[in-house]
């Protein structure tokens, strides 16, 4: 099992109120699975994704990622895992506006200190694969929404992670570019990556083989097939 959550608990302080975003969540994901997490806003699905991505720490419970207990890793070790094992796709793309498409894709390689010639090779390959070769020198504000998200996907996959975490990847796109992006995400799944996608679009959620529904911090449904 690539992901194993055991009785994960996460509470936020909102004003005077304690909000239990995740209540005793236990979840296992096999390597290569395609999983969608659905639910209304406030149901805890984004919190769950953040914890899966090691951007957030659970208050209680244990999270095994590739059979390794991540709960007591320090910041540097967690960053290491994010860098090599996890790719994020965000609703708002989060491209760095001053950098070109190619440079945005290159960023994880640069931060990891990989040799420039090798970097260039891998960036060119990734852009080519996503049909962005002619957009390499464009800055994000010169790209369409769909193109931006594809640049973001190229960035998320450039380190060859085993897990792709997508948070409403089509939430900010029109239908046709949304479809395009979903095609790309599903092709990643076919290549063997584990894909976990948070969405509140039921149509999108139905496309995943395994569908998890959340409500008030609890998993209320977990269906496969």
């Amino acid at each position, binding site marked *: 099992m690539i992901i194993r959550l055991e009785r994960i608990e996460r509470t936020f302080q909102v004003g005077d109120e304690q909000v239990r975003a995740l209540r005793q969540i236990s979840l296992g994901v096999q390597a290569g699975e395609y999983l969608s997490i659905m639910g209304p806003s406030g149901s805890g699905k984004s919190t769950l994704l953040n914890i899966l*991505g090691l951007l*957030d720490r659970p208050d209680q419970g244990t999270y095994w990622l590739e059979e390794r207990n991540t709960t007591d890793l320090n*910041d*540097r070790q967690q*960053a*290491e895992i994010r860098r090599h094992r996890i790719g*994020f796709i965000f609703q708002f793309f*989060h491209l760095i506006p001053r950098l070109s498409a190619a440079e945005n894709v290159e960023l994880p390689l*640069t931060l990891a200190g990989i040799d420039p010639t090798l970097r260039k090779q891998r960036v060119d390959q990734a852009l080519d694969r996503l049909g962005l070769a002619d957009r390499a020198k464009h800055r994000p504000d010169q790209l369409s929404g769909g193109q931006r998200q594809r640049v973001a996907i190229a960035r998320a996959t450039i380190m060859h992670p085993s897990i792709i975490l997508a948070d409403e990847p089509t939430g900010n796109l029109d239908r046709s570019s949304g479809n395009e992006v979903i095609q790309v995400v599903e092709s990643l799944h076919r290549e063997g990556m584990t894909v976990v996608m948070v969405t509140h679009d039921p149509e999108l959620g139905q496309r995943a083989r395994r569908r998890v529904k959340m409500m008030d911090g609890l998993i209320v449904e977990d269906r496969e097939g």
Partner: protein
Amino acid sequence: MKIKDVVLFCVRSLAGYPLRTGLMLLAMAIGVAAVVLLTSLGEGARRYVTDQFSSLGTHLLIVLPGRSETVGGPPPLLGQTPRDLTLSDAMSLKSSSAIHHVAPLMVGAAPVGHGHLIREVIVLGSTAELYIVRGLTMAQGRFIPTGDVNRAEALCVLGYKLKSELFGSDSPLGQFVRIADRRYRVVGVLSKKGQSLGFDMSDVAIIPVASASALFNRSSLFRIMVQASGREAIPKAKAAILKIIRERHDDEDDVTVITQDALLATFDRIFKSLTLAVAGIASISLAVAGILIMNVMLIAVSQRTAEVGLLKAVGTPGRQIQRLFLSEAAMLSLIGAGAGLLLAMGGKMVLIRIFPAFPVTIPYWAPAAAVGLALVSGLIFGVLPARRAARLDPVAALSRR
């Protein structure tokens, strides 16, 4: 992350916000330029004074009437004089082997005229040896001749400016000038020599000391200038002067002997500390620039929250993010400091234009110190924003658009 990539990343992010970067660079540049320029002004003042003293002549001792009680203070130019310093005091100094030349100096102001032109100038009464002691040079003719110092010969030597004003381009040699109500034959003209210690040697008339004594009806000397027989002989000469004068003045120490070296050393110390003080004041502006960098970096961190969140999401540890922001601050400081140095060079050229006589020199340590200070202040004030960036919660950072 490779150093080249860090530099590139910082350059890109600095170039991404040109106005903000420009303002910070300006602040840094002004700070560095202020430090460099103010220290070079201080250094210039020090050199100016040193040069002035050097132009007095070599191995010089100055004997002043009156006793200075405080050690290391300024010479008692207007001190109370219990006993006058006389010409025979001066001449008796020659008995010491450590003393080569003695030039008594009597000073007064008198109208000097030729034809219908009259100028009020300083009249110096001295002997032939003043020529050697002050290291004077002649433009025309000769200096006061050697001979009996007690003979009041009616001849004079004119300063260059005084000669031009009275005679224009004519040769004054052999002609007569009136000083007060007496007539003096001009025997020589001094060559152009700048000011030395407030004494404009180009605007004086020099007459034999006995003539001056008669002219001003006075026997007391303004001072005696003594040239020791060598640099090593200066302390010996000083002791000899004090001993001889004490014997002649009924066992009383009522003169002050200033050696050029001591004077120079004192002024050197004063101006060095002055320069440092000025540099200290100027470095406050660097601290201000540092605080500005801190403020703007803090704004930068909050503007770039999403970017920091993304950096974390793609696996950048907090420490690395902190290093990136610190590198940015360091680069700002360095570029600003470089611009500041250029600014200082420009400022120096302007100063030289405005005050050509004043030796404005940038001391060798000033640019290094200014750049170092700029870097330190940039780094110190960059720590807080960088730490804030490193500690940002990635979830909160990414939830913003």
